[in-house]
């Protein structure tokens, strides 16, 4: 049986095996490919770097188990950068049911509770049900919507919340999600209050967000695992995302080879006929 016949008959098995190898080998033995920085990622980095003491950064999250691999590394990298900024207040809020799990995981990963004072430097508000209504309520009047944080502490006992009432008091909002709820922050924070918004997204959502980026409605995008890797490089903390880039590179190369191969097979078949 020729190679062409083998590929035509058992192509799925061969392809899946090749993909598995292409991803597994670089993860075990990294190639160390350089990670070029996109302007969308650099814009987020520059904006966070320009934050001043007293500024408020809101981290919205709808991270779940399915998108953990793509979006969670972005979340951790951004959180680390925010925690390096002296005097910047960070509010973590979740609009997905699994969000609090990954928010606390990220806070523990960067040792947030040891580095800064809870209630003074950062607050985790937890999951708020209601989708866009929840974000709208946060932006309209935070204290009207919520009385306690994720751990049940009264917001009145958290000093940093005294001066934060609505979206006018948010300096920037960063939303990490895979679904259309990144739109919620645009609708409820950017459109009515002019709050600066950026997204951390999975790859399929990036084309949609790019339209808002080029229009100037969002100040940056962290594009999937690639964006996470770029951000890890920018903050000098290479992690799982940078490791994953070699695997992604080989996988993409494999896809390109497959596309070219399928056309070779196709035109070979057409030529024969």
């Amino acid at each position, binding site marked *: 049986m020729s190679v062409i016949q083998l590929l035509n008959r058992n192509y799925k098995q061969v*392809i899946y095996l090749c993909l598995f190898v292409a991803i597994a080998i670089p993860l075990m033995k990294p190639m160390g*490919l350089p990670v070029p920085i996109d302007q969308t990622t650099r814009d987020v980095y520059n904006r966070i770097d320009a934050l001043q003491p007293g500024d408020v950064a809101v981290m919205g999250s709808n991270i779940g188990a399915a998108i953990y691999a793509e979006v969670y590394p972005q979340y951790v990298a951004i959180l680390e950068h925010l925690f390096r900024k002296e005097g910047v207040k960070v509010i973590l809020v979740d609009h997905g049911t699994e969000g*609090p799990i990954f928010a606390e995981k990220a806070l523990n990963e960067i040792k947030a509770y040891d580095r800064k004072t809870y209630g003074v430097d950062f607050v985790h508000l937890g999951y708020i*049900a209601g989708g866009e209504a929840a974000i709208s309520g946060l932006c309209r009047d935070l204290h009207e919507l919520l009385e306690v944080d994720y751990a049940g502490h009264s917001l009145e006992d958290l000093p940093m919340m005294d001066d934060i009432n609505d979206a006018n008091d948010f300096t920037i909002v960063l939303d990490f999600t895979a679904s259309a709820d990144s739109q919620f922050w645009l609708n409820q924070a950017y459109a009515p209050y002019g709050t600066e918004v950026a997204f951390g997204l999975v790859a399929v959502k990036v084309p949609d967000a790019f339209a808002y980026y080029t229009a100037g409605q969002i100040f940056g995008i962290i594009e999937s695992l690639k964006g996470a890797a770029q951000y890890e490089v920018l903050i000098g903390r290479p992690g799982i995302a940078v490791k994953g880039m070699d695997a992604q590179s080989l996988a993409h190369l494999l896809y390109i080879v*497959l596309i070219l191969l399928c056309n070779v097979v196709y035109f070979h078949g057409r030529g024969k006929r």
Partner: protein
Amino acid sequence: MAGIWRTAASAVLFVVALTMLVDFAWEDPALQGVATDLNNWAVVIGAFALGLGAYSLIVRHGRIISKKQTMWPYSIVLLLTMFAFIVTGLITGSVTSSEYGWIYSTIIQPLSSTLYGMNAFFIASASYRAFKARSWEALVLLVAAIFIMLKNAPIGYAINPILPAIGGKIWDVAGSTGMRAILIGIGIGTLALGLRVIIGQEKTPLGGAD
């Protein structure tokens, strides 16, 4: 009775929707207060909807088990798993407790990640099967796909910086342009649906699918 309920629900929907719309454009402290309250009620209703979802699952799968319908043993597995999560969460008091985290990271996370990760393999086989240059449009599609893939992975830059640059131009000029057009269509469609729901012409959200 169903007719009276639907009429009342439509009236409430109309008033609430109009209030929120006018509040966006009209500056009035009293109106803003009412709109904020309505918004917060929506959040509370959203929270109750979660519980309602769990209740309907229990009822649905309880019926499947009692009537021994197709694949009823899996309904038992579903309900047992659901109760395990609920009881663990209630006893430990938090979804970030180590016990809850353990069952989440051993059951949900691997399952969800695996199913989502399967997409990568399916895309590989779809790439081989479907990206044939059967026409000029298909040729443009596959050439654009190649350059975009080289843009999205460091290997493109490592081979030659011109490759991701071309991919970037395709992305900026063609991709975002097309996306913008689709977004406008989606926005108008959302407005149309909203109008139909507000005036009561679209009955499906009120349980009146005809």
